[in-house]
């Protein structure tokens, strides 16, 4: 049986993750406990690996919420299952998708990137590209309710590096990873 793992599998394993198979991918379900993870995110900052999400690159304006990468250039990111339409390039495997959430997520990103992440410059559901921790990143704000949250898409080979730098830079805000369970709970 085919085993599919994100770039951060061993990172999660070393952090004591309990895994669950999610659309064929082995994803971390829980690291410490659901309550603790949710509490850390809502009071500080947390980061989750959602690399299993389907992503495709297209030149045709998508019907749903597309991430605009440039003039006539879009990225569509969606929960599986989803078949990319004809002509689109499947980039699911190309990008690791890191979700940073919590009241202090802007502060942590402000230590790693020169991007302006203020409300005015990056309203909810908008997308920007730039360098985060010296790695080219597609960044999209997708607040979880009233809590700021950002998806960071980095090329898969950089994922572990970026993940670790985020956790390190977020120490002053008790940055911790959170699993699929906590994510579902935060999404309500």
């Amino acid at each position, binding site marked *: *049986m*085919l*085993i*599919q*793992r*994100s*770039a951060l*599998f*061993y990172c999660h394993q070393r952090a004591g993750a309990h895994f669950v198979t999610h659309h064929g*991918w082995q994803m971390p379900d829980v690291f410490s406990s659901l309550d603790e993870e949710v509490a850390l995110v809502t009071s500080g900052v947390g980061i989750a690996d959602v*690399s299993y999400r389907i992503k495709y*690159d297209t*030149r045709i304006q998508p019907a749903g919420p597309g991430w605009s990468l440039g003039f006539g250039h879009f990225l569509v990111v969606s929960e599986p299952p989803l078949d990319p339409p004809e*002509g689109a*390039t499947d*980039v*699911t*495997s*190309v*990008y*690791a998708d890191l979700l940073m959430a919590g009241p202090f997520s802007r502060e942590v990103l*402000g*230590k*790693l*990137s*020169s*991007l*302006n992440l*203020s409300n005015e*410059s990056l309203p909810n559901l908008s997308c920007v590209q730039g360098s985060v*921790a*010296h*790695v080219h990143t597609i960044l999209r704000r997708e607040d979880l309710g009233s809590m700021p949250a950002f998806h960071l898409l980095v*090329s*898969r*080979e*950089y994922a*572990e*590096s*970026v993940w670790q*730098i985020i956790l*390190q*830079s977020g120490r*002053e805000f008790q940055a911790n990873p959170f699993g699929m369970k906590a994510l579902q709970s935060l999404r309500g």
Partner: protein
Amino acid sequence: MKIFFGKREVEARPGDTIAAALYRSGQRIFSRSFKYHRPRGLVCAAGKCPNCMMNVDGVPNVRTCITPVIDGMKVKGQNAFPSLEHDGLSATQYLDRLMPVGWYYKIFTSRTAWHAVEPFIRRMAGLGEPPAVAAGEYEHGWLHCDVAIVGAGYAGMTAALEASERGSKVTLIDDQSEPGGQLLYRKRSRSGADGLIERLKARSEIRVLQGSYCFGLYEGNLLGVVQPAQRPGTAERLLHVRAGHVVVATGAYETPLVFPNNDLPGVMLATAAQRLMHLFGLQPGRRAVIIGADEDRVGELRDDFREKGTEVVAVVSIEDVVGATGGSEVTGLRCRNRKFSCDLIVVCGPRVPDAGLIAQAGGKLEWNQLQGAFVPTALPHNVSVVGDAAGETISAAFPPPAAGKRSFVCFCSDVSSKDLCDGVAEGFDHIETLKRYTTSTMGPCQGRMCQLMTIGICAQETGRSIADTGVTTSRPPNPSVTLGALAGNSHHPVRRTPLHDAHEELGAVWLDMGDWKRPRYYRTAVATPEKESVQGEYWAVRERAGLIDVSTLGKLDVRGSDAGRLLDKVYTHHFSDLRPGRARYALMCDEAGVILDDGTISRLGDDRYFVTTTTGNLDFVYQWLEWHLAETSWDVRVTNVTGGFGAMNIAGPKARDVLKKLTDCDLSPTAFPYMACRQAEVSGARSLLLRVGFVGETGWEVHCPAEAAEFVWGELLEAGREFGIRPFGIEAQRLLRLEKRHLIVGVDTDALSTPYEADMGWAVKLDKQDFTGKAALAKFASAPPRERLVGFALPGTNVPEDGCAVVVDGKLAGRVTSSRYSPVKQMAIGLAWVRPEKAREGASIGIRQSGRLVPASVTLRPFYDPEGTRLRT
């Protein structure tokens, strides 16, 4: 709270700076001067002068007068032998005849003399020891705002409140620990400022950065700001503040007056005495003499001293001063008519607008005779200056500096007024050359204390006006910044292939290739040396099967109806005529015909190609393709899919047997010939199989989704176990390809290599319509080559190093680019650039190896399987 000062424990009160706590404990000497080791005490108490710099918790040159106390800090003096109180090197001041201005240009005219004394001078004239370990984790941060205001004095706070009330997002940067500027320590400045500090604190929208100093104002309103440590274990944080508008409200600072012994501990600026009294509740001295002429100012000081119980012995004007007296501290002041005994001399010096940032940003400073100051005139776009920094309340006549070798102008590097006069007399009469020759204004205070006086003396000595003399250039950093803060954290991104942890498990010894980590070889048992491991991996590929991770190859998905047209344009071969299911070697040249990159291009469908590039050139190739597309309206989309595929090359006579256990794809030579490609499942993973042969054996590159790569890799190793498969690393791969005489772009070629010279003319199709580099290549095709890339072999096990010189008839005639010991040939082989006349089978060349000339013979054929039969079976 307590701090440790040398061996002494010093009590500190909340709100104290280090210097305040030390002053309260009776400490008067805070540093020793740079050149003469004269004792120095507090002068500005505001972080502007160099006198209070000490080593704090291992960090040198900390301005203790503005650094808040943290319980348990370890503080010590610097540049003093053996102690601040007793410094034997202070005897050097009596040898000052031997050390006139510019003395080491005059004395050490021979190189040997300078090298002999340099270590001693460096030690004597130090500015503290560099820390052995970093003070903590340095961080960077970015901040965006509508208005950034530098300085939280009256003007800065007013500006911040106004801008904020108008709805702007405001950041206020202040280098003191509390906002207020002189309102905090000068009672008379408070009229009209009632409640300003409270209003500022109440307005939470304003982001106030206390204890943070702005060291540079750069293009596009970028401010460099250093923030103090934000939490234990960290050091300073450097903030890049980008502001729509910058308001410079840095105020004005007081500067010293020049008279003999003006540097003795106990001689301080009036503002410094007021700071000590009002900010820290200190009594700066018992008996004070005030040097100053402004009645208001003197009256203000008298009030302050009366409150603190300090007796004002006399008020004198600078014209009457003959000099201060004292040894390690001031004991009196001699004036023309009489002498006063005192332990404190308070100097009301000229006030200078702190306009360094304006000058850095490109603004102009012009001398205003009425104000006695250089004031900003032409301001850069979106920068304004308010308050004292704009010269608003400045009015001071230029005070006459006293001549003398103990009348110090520059405290940072012990430059006296005599030194400056001598400098001018020696011909350095332009302010910028005088600055460089005497080093006045070039020390840690960045000219704050001495700039005005230096300019004044230069003007006086040359008979020019101050306006004509001009102002020295102000550059960032202003003030100084630690290198750690500029460097920031040590985050360096690392690229890991999807098989990284699998390699780790197999005992990989890593090789850094750019940001990538690649296995150099696999250590099978801990003691196995590299040579044996590589040989083992080599023979596995030649005799059985080997598996290597090639995920670092650049991978581009090129699709659209004009995809072939684009590839025809940028690569030298034909690609629009490539049949789906076939692959072709691809060589890319620039307009001058120089090789840029190589790889393979596979046609997956009518409108879809899969391009691989070398590991290091991916970003370049991607941009090159995009650049060529930019001028067209072609239907092509190039997507970088490098990270999305795990790629592994399985090669060796048993490769087919291994692979066919995991796939339904027909791998027979007829169904899947050399240079063909197929999309098929391998162990259940949708994969792209390319039959290519970099190492010269039957083999396939398996490109599968990265998330499945580790699984597929494991399955391949498991399936190959019965055939003796081994994972192999870069080192074995390099040896295997060298036996096939396959070149590596960037290793065997350089910035001048052309395909014809590199023996790759077969990959250039001049019959194509137009392509990048065609004109140059057409010329090269018929012209005699300048040099040629050939193979060489030499007997024995001694392998020449890369870069060894090729020598023919005693003359340099080329260079070795790659070389290894060939197990099949049992001799050293390699690739080398040689003169064209030597590029024939069997020609003899010499290779200089560790000083010896070794004979080698040239070959134009692969060393291994020259017909390529093994590759095609």
